[in-house]
């Protein structure tokens, strides 16, 4: 998986490319802990180029949300394809993490 990190208007944007399986979830977790350490409070994960997410990926996102919430921050996700959105919905993770249709809407709402 490729992970790109950028800051747009105080929002840390995490661009993912590939599959969020077990190994890649560890990579994402480490990248996230890095941006949290640097003071990120609002984080938006862009799933446009993500084709697969397993339970390890979902767990990483929940942990990210919990850590941000603890520090008064917020996690959002955008550009999620229908298969992955279905996973968010059946596991009810969409009640914990806000999903935006696209990046522009996400950035506007943060």
């Amino acid at each position: 998986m490729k992970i790109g990190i950028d800051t747009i208007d105080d929002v840390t944007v995490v661009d993912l490319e590939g599959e969020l399986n077990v190994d890649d979830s560890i990579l994402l977790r480490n990248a996230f802990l890095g941006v949290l350490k640097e003071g990120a409070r609002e984080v938006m994960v862009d799933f446009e180029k993500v084709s697969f997410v397993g339970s390890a990926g979902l767990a990483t996102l929940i942990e990210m949300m919990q850590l941000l919430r603890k520090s008064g921050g917020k996690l959002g996700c955008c550009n999620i394809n229908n298969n992955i959105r279905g996973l968010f919905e059946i596991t009810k993770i969409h009640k914990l993490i806000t999903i935006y249709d696209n990046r522009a809407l996400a950035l506007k709402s943060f």
Partner: protein
Amino acid sequence: MRISETMISQVEFIDDFIDSLLERIFQTPKQHNSVFNIKLALHEAIINAVKHGNKMKQHLNVQVEIIKEDGQLTIQVTDQGEGFDFKKIPDPITPENLEKLNGRGIFLIQNAMDRVEFTDQGRTIKMMKLLKGD
């Protein structure tokens, strides 16, 4: 079509192992509607077998048997661990479990496949899916 494969209990091998299985099940995996769900079910079942069943002990194997016939796919994943009580799987979408970091794998499998059964004291999971239009 029948596939029988064995892998050692090493997490790093799981993704390549699953991709090779999917390529054998479907000649062009991305064109099939069911591939995401079947990949998800295989992924979660094999991770459970490696991590929770075999507890990452590399001398223990995970056996995968796949049968594709008459428009139905049957996948059986067996580990060599101690088994588990599959009747006591917590529901991951209850309010008290919703934020837990673990415990979604079997729930995802049950949603991805049409039928799921456990045998051999939880060491074997058998998953079935009808391949509509695939």
